[in-house]
């Protein structure tokens, strides 16, 4: 009696499984998985692209996983890989690519359709520079650059012309000092109620220092091959001192007050802020009434213009490479989401600039008062070659904290940072050779 019941259950299970197999076999759809971290505007834009792609390619289904918060994105990738699951196409920060290539997680982009000539000709120069170990490993839809955000209301309240943002580093300092408001001791960071400028190395200012300020002081952050740290020079020290002075000397602001540097600007409590085009969307969502403008970054003492360029970029994983049908579908998908048309859709929905030059140099973008300065910056932007972006950023955060919290001399702090970062870079290459 008992045995026959077990047999019946077993029979039902067998039938169910075989049915599933038949359904699966009849279905000759290729299914690929695409992962990116959760950022509202990007998720919406990618959903639109996937819809268009699936309409053009009825045999391919793209599963879009965008539920992972930014803070957990790397954890989830790391957990999925040993389990044999995960994305076929994945969107990574460009600075992570060397680490993912090092692990053998990504496969090189196929020469057809992503030949070197094609990439050099059609994409922004910072994309072309991302060649690593003789291959291209990822290709973006959009790129970003840094520009200067300024709060027009605070400028007006301080008696400055709200329509003329600082054009040089000296003007920048003067404007920051003029716009800072205190309700007590002017040498105490905690008595600031409106900030002129609040340096925050954990946000974008480590990029501003690395790729912009050092060059404007006549130095270079790294050797040409990116393997030697060179920012602990006289010029680097001058640039770092200039940045630290906002907190230690001019007392115009700090990341420690008013809910952090970025939030303070978004909330209308900071006059001057350096950030990327992606912040435009944050402001539109959180404080749409903010009366602000965007300008190109101020010119340095040597009269040069520089900016930092960066991008989230799409790569094909080892997992996709295991199955020719999935690989083919992944390449098609990658090609589709990196066209100029995709870039245009992206800029309209996300605010990041198209990675393809044809779309980025569009008249409408250049004339746009908000996007124009970012777009202009693409011509003189640099993208740092990171071996471990998170650790390299930490090095400069610590150097800055050593100055402002530990009272260390900026040159000594920078020497210490350079030694620590050099060790990271050396370790990376030592493992590869």
């Amino acid at each position, binding site marked *: 009696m008992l045995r026959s019941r077990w047999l019946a259950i077993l029979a039902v299970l067998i039938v169910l499984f075989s049915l599933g197999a038949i359904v699966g076999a009849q279905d000759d759809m290729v299914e690929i998985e695409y992962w990116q971290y959760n950022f509202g505007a990007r998720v919406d834009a990618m959903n639109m692209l996937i819809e268009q792609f699936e309409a053009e390619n009825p045999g391919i289904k793209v599963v879009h996983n965008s539920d992972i918060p930014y803070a957990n994105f*790397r954890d989830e990738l790391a957990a999925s890989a040993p389990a044999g699951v995960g994305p076929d196409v994945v969107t990574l920060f460009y600075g992570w690519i060397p*680490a993912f290539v090092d*692990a053998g997680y990504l496969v090189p982009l196929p020469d057809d359709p992503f030949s070197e000539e094609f990439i050099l000709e059609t994409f922004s120069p910072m994309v072309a520079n991302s060649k690593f170990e003789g291959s291209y490993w990822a290709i973006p839809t959009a790129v970003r650059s840094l520009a200067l955000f300024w709060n027009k209301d605070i400028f007006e309240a301080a008696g400055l012309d709200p329509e003329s943002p600082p054009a040089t580093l000296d003007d920048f300092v003067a404007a920051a000092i003029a716009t800072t408001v205190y309700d007590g001791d002017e040498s105490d960071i905690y008595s600031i109620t409106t900030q002129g400028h609040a340096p925050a190395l*954990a946000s974008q200012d480590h990029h501003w220092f690395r790729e912009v300020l050092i060059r404007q002081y006549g130095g270079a952050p790294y050797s040409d091959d990116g393997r030697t740290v060179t920012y602990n020079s006289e010029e680097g020290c001058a640039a770092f001192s200039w940045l630290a002075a906002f907190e230690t000397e001019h007392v115009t602001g700090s990341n420690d007050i008013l809910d952090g540097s970025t939030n303070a600007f978004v909330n209308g409590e900071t006059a001057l802020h350096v950030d990327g085009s992606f912040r435009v969307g944050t402001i539109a969502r959180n404080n749409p009434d903010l009366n602000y403008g965007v300008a190109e970054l101020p010119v340095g003492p040597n009269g040069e213009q520089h900016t930092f360029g960066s991008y989230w970029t799409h790569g094909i994983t080892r997992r996709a490479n295991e199955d020719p049908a999935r690989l083919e579908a992944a390449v098609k998908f990658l090609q589709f989401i990196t066209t100029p048309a995709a870039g245009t859709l992206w800029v309209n929905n996300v605010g990041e600039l198209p990675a393809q030059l044809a779309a980025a140099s569009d008249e409408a973008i250049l004339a746009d008062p908000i996007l124009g300065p970012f777009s202009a910056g693409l011509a003189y932007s640099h993208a740092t070659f990171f071996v471990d972006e998170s650790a390299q950023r930490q090095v400069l955060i610590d150097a800055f904290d050593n100055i402002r919290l530990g009272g260390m001399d900026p040159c000594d702090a920078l020497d210490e940072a350079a030694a620590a970062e050099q060790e990271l870079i050396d370790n990376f290459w030592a493992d590869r050779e």
Partner: protein
Amino acid sequence: MTLAKKKVVWAYIFLAIPIVFFAYIRVYPALFAFQMSLHDYNPLAAEQPFVGLENYEKVLEELGKRKSTTKAAFQNTINYVLLGVPIQLCLALAIALMLNEIRFMSTLYRIMFFLPFVTSTIAIAWVFRMLYQPRFGLFNVVLQLVSLPQQPFLRSPQQALPSVLALVIWQGMGFAIIIFLAGLKQIPRTYYEAAEVDGASRWHTFRYITFPLLNPSIVYLLVLQTISFLRMFAPVVAMTEQGRGGPLDATTTVVLRVYREAFQSFNMGYASSLTVMLFALILGVTIIQLSVTSRRIN
């Protein structure tokens, strides 16, 4: 098979399910960590080359440096334990003794002291983060009211560790209080009555009756709280800028270091060797504590 035997067999079969689950979810990963620590284990890579004790050598090398995040992590963790455990247990004992005395609204008081323990650590950490805020945080507002200088708390390399510690002590204290209260209830009233007849002072009663007879509770809490301070992670992540254990590694812990190395830098082999060392540390400390403090009391 007799019915009684059958019952026992079925009991074992049912109990086996949680044991298998426990072994797979807790024991197997723990053993796997030992194995990972001997490899250059990158979770994203297809192959994980064997490197012997290289990861351990790297940890020792970092510990030998004048300044390194790993060294700071170990130093801070030891500080958390050495400061946190004694303060927490002394406060908990004092409060438990007082709670044991009162009768009016005693349940309400007990609930108030126990409540933090059952509240989410992350939620409490964020509330404390706001309380520690400059200018508008409650603590600084109070300081301002009594004309004392503003304090940076979490933003200062010197004050950050005690600031995090204060929260952890307060949150975990409810648990220690409950254990002490249970221990106090176990002490026969006759001892106190005898002491009273003999005219013993309150201090002598505590020193020669309460304290020695609470020894089992004290040992239990000492071991448990030491382990929990050694494993400190969540409050530091929730209370420091971007969960990095700053400023300047002032609050970072060994477990936070393990997490960051494993999942931010993908050095799971190195992270595993740190875990194994932490395991050895916890084991060693526990054995010493048990052998020193669990002498039988007559």
